[in-house]
């Protein structure tokens, strides 16, 4: 009974956090520090179940705001939004959400089983992927988003550069000196992800909503029957979902690369595998929802591999999970824990239980939640703005949080107006410090002969070059998403 309640409570909490625009798993997990101690007095294993339920359900929940409002629930849901939001505009929100949820759930169950059942086996595999391979993966992610997120690929490259520049604001990793802060001490700790995502995506959509159409959906279509259509779409395009799941699982398995990258690589792979579509990608193609949604839950599951085995967080949310588990007396990465069967059972039950629970809850209520797209924007637009503002000022609570949020909002509005790819800007921002640090590390520790001796690295480099050539010269199906 307690296990069921822990799963249910974690699922509902995670779902709500996931739905809040610009929030996502990391934010939701941070907020748990206030009361996670309760589980230590009661049963810490229930705490593990609860935390894993939050992880699983927030990942599924963050599709809602991306599809319904054009605002990613978390930065990893930005890829889903590219085709999901146009579907909502066409009155097909329930179909898009159902496809997202079903695909996400299926891949979550598949990769959750493979992850938690075979956990100790993966330790040797992680050792194969060193600094050069991680560097090449990051480059591949940039190439993917650069050439699929906008038909204006030059502007995409510029957007990536702008995102990278903003992502590099803060501390120079080499000298530990402040960099690009323009004398503003607040920036010495970098631009925080929350105001950047909210400013880039949420504010432009809210402003558009308040100034433009009266509702999100421009066409009023009955939501009845769309649940079944969504399920059917996942079955029809199952290979896109499975491919996305595989990509997500693989990226999650590599420490430190994170969700946004895997979703975009999954999206890029989907567009590349479907070159001749009647409905172009970016205009409401359901495959554009299924591909990236296959990736996100799979990525969350496999991120736990390096986190649990080595105590090395597989993604930013996993770092918070580690700290929460430490609070519950479970120190990840220690040999003792590997023999704690109950701990592994709790990880498994929490993640899988919540994946199923959130699917059931969402499928039952999606039809009604999707009705939000028919509500006049002025009703929930201001509320949304308050939510987003609240999320953005949790860093210091000072005026600087508001100032940076406003600046990011101006950037987001400008990017939308001038058709610079905002997803490309976001991925540049997220990966900037990885690009810099991995480049530094690779060039310091490896010389050319050593690099030429690494087949996986070479294969990835060929893929990056191939993506560039394809994107510039051959890709006729580029998106028009800014």
């Amino acid at each position, binding site marked *: 009974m307690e296990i069921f309640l822990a799963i249910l409570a974690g699922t509902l909490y995670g779902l709500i956090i996931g739905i809040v625009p610009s929030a996502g798993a990391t934010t939701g997990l941070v907020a748990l520090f206030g009361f996670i101690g309760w589980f230590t007095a009661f049963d810490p294993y229930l705490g593990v179940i609860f935390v894993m339920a939050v992880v699983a359900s927030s990942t599924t929940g963050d599709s809602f705001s991306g599809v319904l409002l054009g605002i990613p629930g978390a930065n990893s849901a930005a890829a889903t939004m590219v085709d999901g939001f146009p579907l909502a505009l066409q009155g097909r929100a329930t179909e898009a959400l159902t496809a997202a949820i079903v695909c996400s759930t299926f891949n979550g169950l598949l990769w959750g089983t493979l992850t938690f059942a075979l956990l100790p086996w993966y330790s040797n595999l992680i050792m194969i992927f060193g600094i050069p391979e991680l560097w090449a993966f990051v480059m591949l992610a940039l190439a993917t988003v650069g050439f699929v997120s906008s038909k204006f690929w030059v502007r995409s490259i510029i957007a990536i550069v702008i995102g990278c520049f903003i992502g590099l604001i803060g501390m120079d990793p080499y*000298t530990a000196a402040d960099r690009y802060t323009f004398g503003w001490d607040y920036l010495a700790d970098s631009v925080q992800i929350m105001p950047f995502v909210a400013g880039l995506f949420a504010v432009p959509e809210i402003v558009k909503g308040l100034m433009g159409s009266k509702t999100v959906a421009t066409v009023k279509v009955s939501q009845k029957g769309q649940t079944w259509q969504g399920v059917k779409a996942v079955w029809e395009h199952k290979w896109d979902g499975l491919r996305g799941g595989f990509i997500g699982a693989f990226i999650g398995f590599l420490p430190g690369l994170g969700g946004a990258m895997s979703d975009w690589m999954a999206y890029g792979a989907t567009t590349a595998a479907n070159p001749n579509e009647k409905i172009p990608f970016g205009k409401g193609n359901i495959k554009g929802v299924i591909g990236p949604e296959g990736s996100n839950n799979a990525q969350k599951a496999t991120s736990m591999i390096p986190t649990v085995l*080595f105590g*090395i967080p597989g993604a930013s949310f996993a770092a918070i999970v580690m700290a929460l588990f430490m609070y519950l007396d479970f120190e990840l990465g220690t040999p003792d824990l590997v023999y704690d069967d109950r701990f592994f059972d709790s990880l498994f039950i929490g993640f899988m239980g919540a994946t199923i629970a959130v699917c059931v809850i969402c499928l039952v209520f999606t039809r009604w939640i999707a009705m939000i797209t028919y509500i006049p924007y002025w009703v929930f637009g201001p509320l949304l703005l308050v939510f987003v503002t609240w999320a953005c000022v949790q860093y210091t609570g000072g005026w600087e949080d508001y100032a940076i949020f406003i600046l990011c909002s101006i950037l987001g509005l400008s990017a939308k107006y001038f058709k610079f790819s905002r997803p490309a800007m976001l991925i540049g921002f997220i990966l900037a410090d990885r690009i810099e640090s991995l480049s530094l590390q690779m060039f310091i520790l490896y010389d050319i002969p050593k690099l030429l001796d690494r087949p996986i690295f070479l294969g990835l480099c060929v893929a990056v070059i191939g993506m560039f050539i394809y994107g510039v010269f051959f890709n006729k199906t580029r998106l028009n998403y800014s």
Partner: protein
Amino acid sequence: MFKKLLATVVITATMATSALADVVLVVPQKPGSGTTVWTEIVAKELEPFLGEKITIKLIPGARDIPGFNKWHNELRFKDDHFMVSHGGNGVSFLQENVDYDYSQYESIGLMNLNIIAAIRADADKNKPSFSSGSGMVPEAFAMTLLICGPNKSVDEYVACFKENVTWVAGMKGSERRLAFKRGELAGTRENPAAFKKHAQPVIDAGDAELWFHHGILDAANARHNDDPNYPGYQLEILFEEKWGVAPSGDFYDAYVLVKSFRDGLQKAIWANKGNPNSAKLQDALRRMSQDAGAMANIAKKVGNYEWLIGADGDQQRDTLMTFVTEDALKNLVKFNTEALKLNSVYKEDLVK
């Protein structure tokens, strides 16, 4: 309407953090960071002995300096606000323009610990690669001493470091650990708890070995003693074994200075001098440190380290201050800027 809503959000966010607290521990980090987790664990054990509610107020910022500065400039004058700092703050105090100043506080309690380094078994100890960063400065000094030997000028040590050590930039703690496990990085260092978790398994597998440690500061005698958990591996002992003489000189003094401020203040709770609530908190901490159950809980999560409470903590701080000499500070800054390329400034006021 919007202005009102915005104002409500601001007021709620500001008040919620500390409104209900009897004691507020200010931490200069984000949620989930090392010192934040440490504070949460200690506060939970301390609360029953204190008999009051402890709230943790996080003020994150670059290199964990803004939060400490804010406490120093404003919050320390509130009798219920106490500061939790870490070893990185100690190093920043020596070489960065920070507002905070340990001499103006009294110690509630602090944890004195050691840092241990490991090296890959197949690596050349005279040509190691190591993760860079301001937190690694004592290790850079230690390996330079071991590699380059005695009787050299600071300039010669700088040149020797540049020639022999590959200083790898941009690695977070987790990346460093994985790179070490993979064999991409020759050396790594950890506190005792993390060493057991991350380095010891690699050593046990035969892929690495213990390299050196910095020793444990004995405040009463102003010297570092060998760590009984890793006997014979203190830098001073290894140096003498290898080079036939004990380490000494300007460069060594700078090493002692920086390692003492990092490891001797690894986790510390401070009050403003004259705070009427200090004695109450010190007493609670003392009783907690004598409670086997509470200490076992803390040790299980963050490691078993020596606690120096109240006057003992002040003595530790005073001992550290005796290491701050003009030459030691100048040589620290010189090595930092010229060998490690760190943004480091000489603080004349500190010597005065």
